[in-house]
């Protein structure tokens, strides 16, 4: 799965969930995977454990403004100029769950999570997290 810009862009403004399941994904000049879930939406589930995600800027970038939880399960993820995984969860959203089963590497951050909601952030790291310049 290769895009000259992003690998995958998924924007959900609907009332339901946003779900993205991938194998290998490459964003040649931008993010590997970008996902946006609106305030009218429910939760987000991203699962890239079946392959590597590589983005020239960020690896996985997700903004959840929905009322549901943000769940990320990853294998290898690389963000060449940004974060490996960059997740924003709004104040109206439920919690954040991140499970890493591979190597997550970014330039600025390996993993960056901004959860402004009142529900916990849970991280399970079964792999490695690293940043090359952050």
């Amino acid at each position, binding site marked *: 799965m290769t895009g*000259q810009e992003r690998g995958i862009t*998924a924007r959900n*403004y609907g009332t339901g969930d*946003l779900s993205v399941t991938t194998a290998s994904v490459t964003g040649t000049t931008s993010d590997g995977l970008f996902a946006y879930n609106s305030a009218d939406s429910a939760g987000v589930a991203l699962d890239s454990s079946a392959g590597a995600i590589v983005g020239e800027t960020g690896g996985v970038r997700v903004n959840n403004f929905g009322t549901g939880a943000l769940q990320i399960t990853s294998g290898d993820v690389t963000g060449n100029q940004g974060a490996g995984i960059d997740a924003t969860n709004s104040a109206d959203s439920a919690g954040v769950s991140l499970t890493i089963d591979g190597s997550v590497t970014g330039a600025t951050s390996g993993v960056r999570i901004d959860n402004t909601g009142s529900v916990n952030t849970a991280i399970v790291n079964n792999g490695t997290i690293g940043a090359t310049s952050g």
Partner: protein
Amino acid sequence: MPPLRRCVGVRLRWPSCAATSPAAAQDACTQSAPGEFKCENNGDTATTTQTLTGSGVTIAIEDGFDIDTSVSGGNALVVRSRGGIDIQQTSGSSTLTGDVCLVVDQSGAGDMTVQTGGAVTGTNGYSVYACNGYNGASSAGLIAIDTSGGSVSGSQGGISVFHYGSGTLRIETADVTTEGANGVYAFGSTSGAGVTIDTIAGTISGGTSGIRAANLADSQLSITTGDVSGGSASGIFADSRGATSINTTGGTVAGGTTGITATNTGAGSLNITTAGVTGGANDSIAATNAFSGTSLSVDS
């Protein structure tokens, strides 16, 4: 609305409906009863346009019936009706070649069903151009185009279908190739009851998009493919006002810009399931589910 203008424009450009009389030894379509035609294999390929009209038209194409107007010019098979159209390859295969190979125009009440049984080639235009109900004539019923019995190629476009009827729009193909516009183009109006495109049996290649579908009705858009490629635009471009399902696991999708562009601005969910997808200048997959929709799922 561009598709409407195009549909009407082409219709006005067509010549009168007078049937031609090919030489006796050539293949020809003959009328056995009002609106009932049989396209027969008489030995030699028909070299002039076969134009068949009626208030309701039924056409049986027999094995070996061929048209080739590439020397004389003109379209191969032109069918117009104000009360439904049914074209069936009853046995074997036929090869149709013309400027626009197969022109089908149904402007009244009734269904349009077309099943070809061999190669369909548009040498100076689209290969298959079908319009079911125009200018708001939503009394038209369903439309079903099946070219899975042979390959389709057109210089300016592959299969182009405009549906203003109240029924479903279904397109089923094997290989479709064009260096002109879209490989397969499907337009379903607000009156429609759903759009289904199934190209799993072949490879789709378009000069702009491989497959482009616009579903303006609050009904299901379903696209199932094998290999698909687009030249200057997306591999698959889907714009739907209803629930949308795209499954390309039967092959790879490549676009000159985006691999798959899918937008659901109606009710229901947007679901995309793929194997390999490549975007030449943009994203491999760009999926947007609007506020009136429900869930968005991408499984690649």
